[in-house]
């Protein structure tokens, strides 16, 4: 079975019961890895406790931070501070300036655009600059919306991403156990919005997996920089 990942799960560390139920459902939905989005100020013990809940259910966890800066300067400051502390760094683009810089910066793994934002969306300009991946939070962006705007915005983002062959990551953006969806549902939503079947499966499996693997490699002690690592000669 493929290694399915949901890189945008937002558990509430203060609500253990909700975390446990979330972890149970994610495990039942055949996910192997989940990206736990935690607040930057959260204590290490709290983070460890949340990770343990998910890991006890057989899920591999990666720590993710969502940066939502309001300016370019703030984004660069946050990246300097948090890049090495988290496995995945994602930027929620609130304005054009932040979106441009975060698409161009190689320290940003993923960018996402808020579902409610009507002024800013993933366009050809951002797609040309993008070095990481575009993340589409299908569940949190689509549910409980009565207007067709969110659907139209996601459909456009998928079309732009396909045109420019940029990496697409499909996530749920689940904040509670009721928002947990299986990889089949996430990919089905993307197919109905215009992504082809192979790409939609890749977007919940190999694409997020490659991001996690690359970032884990960077955290290894022998890693120096991209393409360079310390190799200890074997003693014979």
């Amino acid at each position: 079975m493929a290694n399915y990942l949901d890189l945008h799960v937002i558990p509430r560390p203060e609500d253990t019961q909700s975390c446990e139920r979330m972890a149970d459902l994610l495990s039942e939905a055949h996910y192997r890895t989940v990206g736990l989005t935690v607040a930057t100020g959260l204590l290490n013990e709290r983070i460890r406790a949340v990770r343990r809940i998910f890991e006890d259910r057989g899920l591999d966890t990666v720590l993710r931070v969502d940066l939502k800066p309001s300016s370019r300067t703030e984004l660069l400051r946050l990246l300097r501070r948090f890049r090495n502390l988290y496995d995945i760094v994602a930027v929620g683009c609130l304005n054009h300036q932040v979106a441009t810089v975060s698409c161009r910066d190689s320290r940003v793994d993923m960018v996402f655009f808020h579902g409610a934002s009507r002024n800013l969306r993933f366009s050809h300009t951002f797609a040309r600059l993008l070095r990481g991946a575009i993340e589409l939070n299908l569940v949190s962006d689509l549910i409980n919306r009565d207007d067709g705007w969110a659907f139209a915005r996601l459909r456009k983002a998928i079309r732009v991403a396909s045109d420019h062959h940029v990496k697409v990551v499909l996530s749920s953006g689940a904040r509670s156990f009721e928002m947990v969806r299986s990889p089949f549902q996430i990919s089905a939503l993307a197919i109905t919005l215009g992504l082809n079947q192979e790409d939609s499966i890749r977007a919940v499996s190999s694409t997020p997996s490659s991001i996690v693997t690359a970032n884990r490699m960077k955290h290894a002690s022998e890693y120096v920089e991209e393409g360079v690592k310390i190799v200890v000669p074997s003693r014979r």
Partner: protein
Amino acid sequence: MTRRYILVKVVYDRKITNEQLDEALNSSAKRYFGEVGLSRIDPRIIRFDADSSTAIISCERNATPEFGAAIALITTYAEAPMSILPLRVSGTVKGAARREK
């Protein structure tokens, strides 16, 4: 017509009957895909076990993504939170009923 059989888990804190589940499925499919979409998906409950909150639901094979999207977008039923989580997709009822070890 060829059909797909999907084993689903119903996450709902209240008791739910076969008819209520059918209503939830049909209303979501109709809301997001319209009457024509609903007829294309043609969801049918094959089995429903209220104790384990699992059901086997079938849909038209060509409309499997639409069915997946329709059940992904179910969030409430009778003003209580509800979600439907597919556990297994198969071409036969027997295959869908077989849970992974």
